[in-house]
């Protein structure tokens, strides 16, 4: 099924991309393709025959050799967790902030370079569909081929156009005064800024850039100002998962409490009672940095 379909209790059909939830840390994406030779996915819960799923509702359980797996509808967020890495990818907090800060909504016309692994592309496509469009550019032929294949498999061919191009040199092709927003995820974003300016509508369009290093941000900001972009903002967004746990702690009992002990006149053997509480624990190690996001407007 397409990433975009919305219907009550949809069922799995030929051609669908399905998400197979194995456990908290493992989710797999699979393409239901009856013509494919390889139609069995091997998971730690046992083999899953894809054919077997057709006609069943998303959200259903599938009993396997060792336990069960669950079949979920594809979403850009699940795709980000399952996609075949071709480059460093963007994750949920940054993707969410990009969509928000580029003011995307149904109908928006967006440029993206580079396509990379397509993690952001799916989130943009979801938001701008059905009337908007994403033009995504990558320099690398294999990545472009792969992205095009996924766009078709995911039912996004009306929303996403993947183009092979060097935006440093050639910019956004024939797009001129056309885009509402451009997102740069490039090693040298400053080289693409004059091209982005040309492709963007004037009067309030938006540009965004993602860079891991502060030096990239500094050059990008300088170049944005030089080309008349305004309202620059640079930020970092991090998300920390919290683990919900019930904790038990020994509570030392002072002498007066123990003297008035519960078990008759005898002092309790241990000077401790138990206190139990629910808490949300921050994991030992959390994401510390993905990259800096810079946004600006073009009037």
């Amino acid at each position, binding site marked *: 099924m397409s990433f975009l379909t*919305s219907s*009550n*209790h*949809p069922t799995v059909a030929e051609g669908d991309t399905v998400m197979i*939830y194995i456990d908290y840390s493992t989710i797999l994406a699979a393409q239901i393709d009856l013509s494919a030779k390889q139609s069995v996915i091997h998971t730690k819960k046992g083999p*899953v*025959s894809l054919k*077997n*799923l057709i006609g*069943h*509702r998303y*959200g*259903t*359980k*599938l*009993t*396997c*050799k060792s336990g069960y797996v*669950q*079949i*979920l*509808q594809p*979403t850009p*967020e699940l795709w980000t967790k399952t996609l075949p890495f071709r480059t460093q990818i963007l994750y949920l*907090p940054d993707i*969410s902030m990009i*969509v*928000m*800060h580029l*003011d995307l*909504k*149904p*109908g*928006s016309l967006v440029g993206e370079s580079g396509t990379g692994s397509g993690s952001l592309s799916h*989130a943009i496509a979801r938001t701008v*569909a059905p009337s908007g469009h994403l033009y995504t550019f990558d320099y690398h032929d294999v990545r472009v081929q792969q992205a095009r294949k996924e766009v078709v498999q995911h039912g996004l061919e009306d929303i996403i156009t993947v183009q092979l191009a060097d935006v440093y040199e050639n910019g956004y092709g024939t797009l001129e005064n056309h885009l*509402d927003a451009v997102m740069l995820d490039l090693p040298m974003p400053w080289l693409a800024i004059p091209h982005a300016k040309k492709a963007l*509508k004037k*009067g*309030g369009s938006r540009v965004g850039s993602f860079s891991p290093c*502060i030096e990239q*941000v*500094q050059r990008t*900001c*300088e170049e944005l100002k030089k080309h008349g972009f305004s309202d*620059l903002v*640079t*930020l*970092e*967004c*991090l*998300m*920390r998962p*919290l*683990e*919900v746990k019930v904790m038990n702690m020994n509570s030392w009992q002072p002498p007066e409490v123990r003297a008035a002990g519960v078990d008759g006149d005898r002092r309790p053997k241990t000077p401790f009672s138990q206190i139990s509480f*629910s808490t*949300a624990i921050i994991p030992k190690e959390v994401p510390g940095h993905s990259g*800096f996001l810079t946004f600006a407007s073009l*009037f």
Partner: protein
Amino acid sequence: MTSEASASLIQDGARVIFQRKDWSKEATVGAGKSLVISKLKIKTDEVIGLPYGTLVELNKQTGKFDRVEAVEEDDFADIEFGEAGGDNRNLVDTGTAQGLSTGEIAELKISGVKGMELINNIVQNSSTFGDRQEYGKEKYVAKKKEKHIYRFRILRPTLRLACDVYSSMKVNKINHIRVDTLAIMLSLSNIQAGSKVLVVDGVQGLLLAAAMERTGGTGKIVHVHPGPQPIIPAYDLFGFPDSWTDTIHHLSIDNLEVVSSHVEILPKGEESMETDGASSDGPVEPPLKKRKLNALQTASANYMKENTMDALIMASRHHPKSILLFLLPFLSLSKNFVVHCAYREPLVDTFQALRGLGSVLRICLNDTALRYYQVLPSRTHPENSMSGSGGFLLSGTTVEKGAAAVVEKEQESVPEDGKEEE
């Protein structure tokens, strides 16, 4: 964003945002409409016909907006910042360093000196400015700017700008939702054009507006509001078309129980009769009740009884647990919910309740951090203050409860069923 030329000019009746750095305000444009900025009431009709994105500055003498040209934030032509590492060795902060007296500054203001000019004036007259360390200079100028400049850009409302409007002054009204938490809620809930969205909004209509912006009037929204009437100024500031607004069903939380299958809705006017069913010895079956509702509430309740939804987002001052548990069955399978709360304890409670259900997968509790940076040549650093918290997010995905509907053939052949009760 349409590309027609007329659409890029501010129309009579438009809802707009007056944006200043770190501080924005919404307004309606038109005759008789006004905007209050530091106790001055400014008529908004004079901006009709200006292009969106125009920069204006409040002239405190005339009480009107003057159009101004774009000036980069850090272009203080007359202020010598120098590189980071300027020398402050001769600076002693005596508290009397400012060369102009308060009275003199007031005079300058009354004489109509524009903001930037005024700041440069103050800076030129400050006996210590030249001696201040870079860091001190920045703070000094920022302080002066904050106090003296009333420059705004007039913009079309967007979710981002709506967050700006609430973030500084009214953030408690939206339960400390921050632009990043709202952004993540919209990703995790997978809301898109055509979605049927269940929105529990006790945050001025901000979630309602977000759901509408992202469905673009092509979906359906059931809006559960905490009081008897929907109070949704954050929604109203968008000025969505009426045809879009018609896709919303409002339902008061006071009437929420009527969507339960155990309650029968009576159109208002008929006599209400509460029947308390005699409780049997078996598993407690809530009694069938009758409730009278007005036509709109009836329509909302019936919509919920007849449809399953694609997404659930929620942010209110109510404890989320009981509401979420009650509403989850109204979601289709394999759909996502996201609940925001300013405090973590209620979400910890709710997390624990969900864990036992069996009908929810990928239950996650998250905290977010948002940090802004000043990026200027030789003066780059994180901003000196930051938002303490944007609240916490609890999310999950609905799945079928109970036994597996499908079994791998290699194991046993069980008739395909998949039709357990929802």
